């Protein structure tokens, strides 16, 4: 999966929705100062993070280890 960092607003709905805890909050920030999510575990490719993201900032490519 890919996070378009410039569009992210740090709401972490992606972290909340992921059923396998593949995402978590990171300490990194984008240019606007919003804290970014990061992939921390295996992604099953269910696409729920891609769909819930209010800023359309996530693209799930396929299931992967990150």
């Amino acid at each position, binding site marked *: 999966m890919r996070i378009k960092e*410039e*569009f992210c*607003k*740090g*709401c*972490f*709905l992606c*972290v*909340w*929705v992921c059923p396998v805890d593949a995402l978590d909050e990171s300490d990194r920030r984008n240019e*606007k100062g*919003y804290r970014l999510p990061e992939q921390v575990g295996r992604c099953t490719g269910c*696409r*729920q993070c891609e*769909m*819930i*993201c*209010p*800023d*359309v900032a996530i693209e799930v490519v396929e299931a992967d280890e990150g």
Partner: protein
Amino acid sequence: MDVEDVLRMDRWPHILCPGCGNGTILNVLARELAERFENGDLDPDKTVLVSGIGCSSRLPGYFRLDSLHTTHGRPLAFATGLKTANPDLEVIVITGDGDAAAIGGNHLIHAARRNLDVTVICANNYIYGMTGGQVSPTTPEGDVSTTTPYGNPEPPFDLCELVMGAGAPHVERWTTAHPVQLKAAIGRALDREGFSFIDVLSQCPTNYGRRNGFRDAREMVEWLRENTSTRDEEGKIRIGILRDEEREPFHARIRKVLEKAGGDGD
């Protein structure tokens, strides 16, 4: 076709606040449309988005489609003219709880009664988000808004019951905590002929959440997931397909009148 082909990504990031439920609605609508444009189920040149005024009503401006950003409460009035004069258009109305049920309440019940063939997506965040958080007809009793600082003394409208009472044949309720189901519901609404209404319980973290004990958008979607059910459960809001019927749409009835009156229907 990809979601980025349907959206005006040159306008990104959009104006909605972090964690705004309107963004999730925009997201799943764009994905459902992209799929339908790709497989030929829908023609982008014949798909029109209509909205009123509010944060939710800003959504059409982010789509690479023809759209009408109308006046507050009036998207269904504009949609009535659009669809009746051009029955081959797919008309999708995006509205808020204030837009649809307060200032636009009469248009809502009459569009349902007439069975106007449109898909209505109502972003129901219980509040007037755009203007700073005034009470709306769906604000739960007791909740705090700028105009009800001591708690809302009024009982809220159940928008699905309202439009079903007025005759709407296809009615569903989902939430922004259910993006997969919401996308499927939009697909069904596009497939149905007649008035399709989707009540989308949504979060406004900025002007509703923080006044009512929610620290952020995550706590709000968590609440939406925990307090809704696809079964009739005590103390939970019923979500899912609430009615799925068919009834002759308004534009077909009007065509019959025109034929009787001696015109050719155009």
